[in-house]
């Protein structure tokens, strides 16, 4: 199971848990299993086509999935995934 760090705006859906675990071999699968454990989580992160929303960044370890294979980015059980709001800085 990979580790997933949940950002503040989504913790209402994870019973305020900051870190959760999720199974899956790709980001898309991880998001699907997160949605089963915490219903409603996926629609916050993804648009209607299942792509990560414009204002959300998803990292596998330290790499933005936009530099990898987007939602098809492979995930290993030892990986740490971070979901981070994109609107910050500047």
């Amino acid at each position, binding site marked *: 199971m990979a580790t997933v760090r949940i950002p503040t*705006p989504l913790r209402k859906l994870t019973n305020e848990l900051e870190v959760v675990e999720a199974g899956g071999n790709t980001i898309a699968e991880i998001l699907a299993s997160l949605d089963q454990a915490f219903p409603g989580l996926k629609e916050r992160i993804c648009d209607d086509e299942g792509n990560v929303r414009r204002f959300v960044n998803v990292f596998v370890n330290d790499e933005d999935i936009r530099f990898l294979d987007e939602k098809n980015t492979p995930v290993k059980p030892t990986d740490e995934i971070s979901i981070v709001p994109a*609107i910050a*800085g500047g």
Partner: protein
Amino acid sequence: MDKPTPFFSNLKCRECGRLYPKQAIHVCDFDFGPLEAAYDYDAIKAAVSRDIFRSRKRRMWRYRELLPIDGEPTIGAQCGFTPLVKADRLAEKLGIKTLYIKNDTVNYPTLSFKDRVVSVALNRAVELGFTTVACASTGNLANSVAANAAAAGLKSYVLIPADLEQGKVLGSLVYGTNVIGIHGAYDQVNRLCSEIAGKYGWGFVNVNLRPYYAEGSKTMGFEICDQLDWRIPRHTVVPMASGSLLTKIKKSYDEFVKIGIVEKTPFSIYGAQATGCAPISHAMKKGTDIVKPVSKPETIVKSLAIGTPADGYYAIHAMRETGGQAEDCTDEEVVEGIKMLAEYSGIFSETAGGVTVACARKLIESGKIPRDEEVVLCITGHGLKTQEAVTGKCGALREIKPSLREFEEQIYAKDMAALQSVNGDR
């Protein structure tokens, strides 16, 4: 001074319009869209006028009804109202009729436009009860947070890429702030700050206080209109890092129209980046609003080196809606831009200013900005902060003994000979 009335009641998601209380939050719970201050423009329109603005001190707070704080500003009260300089020699050099420089290299207290945003953010931080403030910065913001927090007696942490210019590191350390150098690019600093914002009860000016912070940039645009005797300039060129300043300059012009302070006249806004980190410019040129992040920025323009620009999407729409364009330039062109600005207008700008001048030049030469129309360049930070960029590239010191003879022989006679040979060549 007359007592201020708050004209903003909520934060509002820019994407879905959901309303939120005006707390230390910056993204919509539902779609992660940015939250913005929502104002009652009808009430503001009824409460202000050109005369009322003009009756107040020449500071950014002159337009405080359009800024998201509740009370009288206690931090950064002296900030803003930097000169709008009519730069005739530089206009001639660039081959245009009318050119103004909005000179934020002399902003107070830390010589960059960031004093504007920090003034708003820290006043709001105090109103919300924070005693520690923080930021993710490429340098200028860190300087301003450190200085303004020191003056206000707030504790501060500034997080920066560890390899910033010396002047920018020292320019934070001197105020006794906690300067944390991160081994990584700005985007990694930013991500770390996003993850720790809220965790320790700190007010991160450009994370959880970002809706307030970002509004401070509007004052640059308000002042430009005020200094042009209440009108919007036809063309404005703005440097882009996150793209926030550009979107807020547009917002400032739109708001002045909305509350009847200026007439609605056509205006265009142009964004400038360094080619080594130009995600917004590249997307704009490709005709898309999908901003592809730059994973490893490579440019001397560290203050604009944001590979994942938060407001890139909105900056592109602001340029498109106003008929503006984006441009980018090489590091060599940046240095030329800094020197040209200094030699033809007497203003010493940091690297971002070199970008603005160099990109304006390209926009003019390619005909995107017409030569017979008025242009304003937003110059956002002082050159003494990024001396590395021009060191060894601006001529050298000529040393002599304190002797009249040496002066005459080695300086005056040589310069006269050089002048004669130039005249002779003509």
